[in-house]
C-alpha cells in the first residue's frame, strides 16, 4: 500500500427538507432526525477507510447532497476532525459545501467559514419564482440573493451558483433574464445544467400525463449557446461542458469565438496546452479530479469511490448505511463493486477528459497507460475530427463548439 497517495474526499449528505420535482439523486426528505447518527456513521467509515488505505493526501473535500447545509456546525466540525486525524488534508485544500437558499443564516455561514470551508455552492437554479415552484424548490429568488449577500458577508470569496435551463415552457428571454440576474451577483463560478427529466420523478410523471409540455431540445441548445456567449463576454472561462469560472484577471480571457472554446493559440498569453487552473483560480479543483479520472474516496450513503483500480458504491439508504457502519464490520458493505480494467479506464478517461476545455493530453495519457492517444484511439480521433466534433493536433484533443452539444455521440466512440 502506497502511503500519502492523493485522493479527493467526497462526503454525501443525503438529507433534504423536501425533494425537488426533478431530483433522482440519493436523497431523502423527512429523515433529518437521523442526522446525528448518520454523521457518527460517516466518521466511522472515515476511520475504517484510513485503516484500509493509509493516510491519504486529501487536496480537496466536497460536501455534496442532498442539502449539506442542514448539518449543524458541531457535526461539520466533527467530520473535519475525523478527516484531519486520518488523512493529510492539505493546508491549501479546497473545501466546498453545497447549500440551499432558505436553509442558511449569516451566522451559520460564518461558522462554516471559520471551520475551514472556503468554497460555497448555492443551488439558486432560476431567477423566476414560478420556475422555482415548478422545480419544487423551497426558496424564492429573493432568498437566493439574500443567501449570496450573507455568503459574502461571512467571507466567502469563492462562490458557485447552480442554474437550470431547458425547463418545460421556458423561453429564451426568460433564460436570458436568469443569466443576467445571476451575473449581477458576480459569482466566481457558475454551473449551468440542462434539465434532464429522470424516470420516476414527479416532473417526469407530469410530463408523461400531459400536464406539462416536454422541453424543446433545440431550444435548450440555443439556451446553451446564449449562455456561452454571455458568460464569455462577462469574463468567464468555459472550462467544462456545464461549468464556467471567472478567469484570472491577469490571464486575459480571449474574445469569444463561436468556433473555439479554448483560447486561440495565437493569443500568446496562453499556451495551447494550458491547464484549467492556469486560466482561472476559481475552477473547481475537486470536480477536476473526476474529469481527469483521478482517484477519489466517497463516504456516506450511496457514495461512490474510485481507488486502487476499482469503483464501488456504498449502500444507498441512510438507515441501512447507519446500521452497516454501526456493526463491528471493518468495511461498509458495498452495493456495487466494479473492477476497471485498462481498456475501460482508457474509455472513461476519454469520456471524462473530453468534457474539459483543456481536453485530454497525450503526454498524460502516455504516462498513465504506456500508450499514446494515436495508438489507442487513432481511428476514432480521425473520424470525429473529420466530422468537426473534435480538435486533435497530435498533442491534445478536445471537443469543438459543435462537439460540446453532441458530447454523447463523441464519448460513445471511446467507451
Amino acid at each position, binding site marked *: 500500500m502506497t502511503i500519502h497517495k492523493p485522493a479527493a474526499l467526497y462526503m454525501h449528505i443525503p438529507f433534504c427538507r423536501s425533494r425537488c420535482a426533478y431530483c433522482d439523486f440519493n436523497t431523502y426528505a423527512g429523515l433529518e432526525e437521523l442526522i446525528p447518527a448518520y454523521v457518527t456513521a460517516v466518521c466511522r467509515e472515515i476511520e475504517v477507510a484510513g485503516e484500509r488505505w493509509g493516510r491519504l493526501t486529501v487536496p480537496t473535500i466536497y460536501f455534496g447532497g442532498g442539502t449539506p447545509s442542514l448539518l449543524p456546525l458541531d457535526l461539520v466540525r466533527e467530520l473535519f476532525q475525523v478527516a484531519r486525524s486520518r488523512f493529510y488534508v492539505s493546508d491549501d485544500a479546497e473545501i466546498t459545501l453545497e447549500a440551499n437558499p432558505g436553509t442558511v443564516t449569516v451566522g451559520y455561514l460564518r461558522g462554516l467559514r471559520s471551520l475551514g470551508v472556503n468554497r460555497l455552492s448555492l443551488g439558486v437554479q432560476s431567477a423566476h419564482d414560478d420556475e422555482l415552484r415548478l422545480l419544487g424548490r423551497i426558496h424564492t429568488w429573493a432568498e437566493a440573493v439574500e443567501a449570496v449577500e450573507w455568503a459574502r458577508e461571512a467571507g466567502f470569496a469563492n462562490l458557485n451558483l447552480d442554474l437550470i435551463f431547458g425547463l418545460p415552457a421556458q423561453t429564451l428571454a426568460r433564460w436570458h433574464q436568469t443569466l443576467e440576474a445571476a451575473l449581477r451577483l458576480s459569482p466566481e463560478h457558475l454551473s449551468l445544467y440542462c434539465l434532464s427529466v429522470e424516470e420516476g420523478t414527479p416532473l417526469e410523471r407530469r410530463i408523461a400525463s400531459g400536464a406539462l409540455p416536454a422541453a424543446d431540445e433545440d431550444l435548450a441548445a440555443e439556451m446553451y449557446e446564449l449562455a456561452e456567449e454571455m458568460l464569455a463576454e462577462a469574463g468567464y472561462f468555459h472550462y467544462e461542458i456545464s461549468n464556467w469560472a471567472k478567469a484570472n484577471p491577469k490571464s486575459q480571457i480571449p474574445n469569444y469565438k463561436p468556433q473555439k472554446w479554448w483560447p486561440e493559440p495565437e493569443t500568446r498569453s496562453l499556451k495551447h496546452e494550458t491547464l484549467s487552473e492556469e486560466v482561472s483560480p476559481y475552477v473547481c479543483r475537486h470536480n477536476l479530479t473526476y474529469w481527469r479520472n483521478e482517484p477519489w474516496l466517497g463516504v456516506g450513503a450511496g457514495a461512490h469511490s474510485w481507488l486502487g483500480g476499482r469503483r464501488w458504491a456504498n449502500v444507498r439508504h441512510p438507515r441501512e448505511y447507519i446500521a452497516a457502519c454501526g456493526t463491528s464490520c471493518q468495511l461498509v458493505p458495498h452495493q456495487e463493486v466494479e473492477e476497471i480494467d485498462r481498456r475501460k479506464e482508457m474509455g472513461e478517461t476519454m469520456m471524462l477528459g473530453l468534457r474539459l476545455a483543456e481536453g485530454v493530453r497525450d503526454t498524460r495519457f502516455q504516462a498513465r497507460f504506456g500508450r499514446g492517444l494515436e495508438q489507442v484511439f487513432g481511428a476514432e480521433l480521425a473520424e470525429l475530427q473529420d466530422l468537426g466534433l473534435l480538435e486533435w493536433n497530435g498533442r491534445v484533443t478536445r471537443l469543438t463548439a459543435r462537439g460540446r452539444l453532441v458530447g454523447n*455521440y463523441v464519448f460513445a466512440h471511446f467507451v
Partner: protein
Amino acid sequence: MDQTHIRNFCLLAHIDHGKSTLADRLLELTDTIPARQMTEQVLDSMELEREKGVTIKASAVRMRYTATDGEEYELNLIDTPGHVDFSYEVSRALAACEGALLVVDAAQGIEAQTLANLYLALEADLEIVPVVNKIDLASARPDEVALELAELLGVEPHEVLRVSAKEGWGIEQVLKAVVTRLPPPRGDPNAPLRALIFDSHYDPYKGVVAYVRVVDGVLVQEEPLLLMATGAETEPIEVGIFTPEMNPTERLNAGEVGYVATGLKTVRECHVGDTLTSALHPASEPLPGYRPVKPMVFAGLYPVVNEDYNSLRSALEKLQLNDAALVFEPETSQALQFGFRCGFLGLFHMEIVQERLEREYGLDLIATAPSVAYQVVTRSGEIVEVASPADLPDPAIIEEIREPWMRIQVFTPADYIGPVMELITRRRGIYRTTEYLDSQRVVLTYEMPLSEMIVDLHDRLKSATRGYASLDYTFDGYRPGDLVRMDILVNKQPVDALALIVHRDQAYEKGSRLVRKMKEVIPRQLFKVPIQAAVGGRIVARATVSALRKDVLAKCYGGDVTRKRKLLERQKAGKKRLKQFGRVVIPQDAFLAVLRLDED
C-alpha cells in the same frame, strides 16, 4: 377401429373466442392428457403461436371417448392455422374432416372470421355443430348469440351448444354431439390407398413427418409409398397416431388420422394437399384440391452485421425444413450488402419467419419492403421474372411490365360497403360483383393487383369495418400495367434496397407520403439528411431530416461515471445494430415505411 366409430373434426373460431381452451378441455375430459400435465393451449406448441394467439402449423390429436351407449369412439381433433395467409393449408385440414365445431364467444357474438371459417367449412362439405362459449362471462348473451347462430345455420336454437371452456361447463355435451351429430368417414377400405397430406413437419430423427387422413384403403408401414403430385417414392419409417405425442401403430385404416414418417429429407418433397398412395398398387386418381404452394410476396432479408451471413443462411435452411412455402436465394445489395431474397405466402408469413429468425436464431435483421414478382417483357420478347425492384432492367429494353392480379372476396356487414369500396378502389381494385348472403351480409368481389394487397390491405380492411370484414383471395393472372421504378435517395445517394415499383399515376402521391414517413423514422443525425423520391432520374418528392442539435449529459461527477459509461456503451451497442449508409444511419422502420403510407 371401424369407420362407424371414428369422428374427424376441427374447431373453427374467430380469434380469442376460446378455441384453444376448448381443445384443452376436450383433451382433459377424454383423459388424452391428464389435467395435471396440462399446459395451457397444448396444441399451439410454438412459442410464437401462444403469443400471437394464432395457430401457425396444423396439428392433430386422437382421443378415445366412451359414449353413453357404452361404445368406444375414436375422435380425431384437427387444429387448423388461423390466418388468411394460410387459407390453402386450412382448406386441406378441413378436407381431412367430416365435421366442425363452430365456436362463438357469448359476449362478442358472430364475427368476421366466424363467417369466413363457416364458408370454408361449408365449401368443404362439413357438418357444423354451433357452440356458444364463455357463457360464464358477466357480459355473456348466450340466448341472443345462440339465436343468431341458429338463424345463420338454419338450425333450431336448442341445437346450439352452450359451454364455458374456461370453467369446464358443458364439455361432455360437446363430445356427445361430436359422436351423434357428426357423420363417420365414408371412404372405401378395400380400394387402393389414398391418404390426404394436410401438414408436415421435419423431425431430426425421422425426417419429414406427414400428417395424413386416410380416405380409402389402408396405410401400412411395410408398403412403399408414392406421392402422386411430386411423383416421389419412399419407404415409410414409421406409421402412427398423435396422442398428442407421436405413437407408432404400424397401420392406419380408412377414415383414420395419423402420421407417416416418410423418410423424405425436406418438406418440399411432401406438399400439403398431395395424395399418398401405394407405390405397388397406386390409385388411379389423386384426391381433389391439390395446389402447389407458390410464394406471393418477396422481401430481402439481410443481417445487420455481415459476419452473420452464414448464420442467416443456415437458419433459413433449418426453417425451410419445416416450411415448404418459404423459398430463398442469395441476393446482393449495394446498400445492405449480402443477404437473401425470400419468398413468402403473405405478409403474416413473412413476419413469422422474420420473428423466428430473430428470436430462435438470435439474428439482427433488416427486412426490405415486401414486393411481388413482376414479369418483364423485353424488347427482344424475352420474359424475365423480377422479384426485387432493384433488379428491374434498364427501361430502354422494357417492352412491358406485368404484375400479378388477384381475385378477392371481401365478406362484410352491409353497413360497411361504402368504406370497403373506397379502400379497394383507391388501390386500383376493379369492381366485379356484390352478393347478399342475407339482408345484413355481403360478399364483394374485386380484382386487384397483388402489390396493392400486400401493403397492409388486411389491416386496413379490418379498421375500415371495425374488424368485421374478412378477406379471401386467389391468384387471377398477370396483367400489363404502367409501372415504373421509384428510387429513394438518402443524402443524395440512391439506396437500392429502398427502391420500389409503383403505378405511374401513383408515383407523386406515394413518393410524397413515403419520404414524409421516412423522415419520421430516420433519427436525426449530425447533419441534415435530404430524402428524395425519384422516377427515371426526376425528383418527385423530398423531405429533410434536420440535424441533431444536442445530445449531451449535463452532469458527470464521481457518482455518475459507471452509470453514464454504461449508458454510452448501450448507445454504442444500439448503433451497431443499425445499418450505416455512408454517414447516415437508417433504421429498420425506414425500410418498411412503404407499408405504412396509409397511416396519417
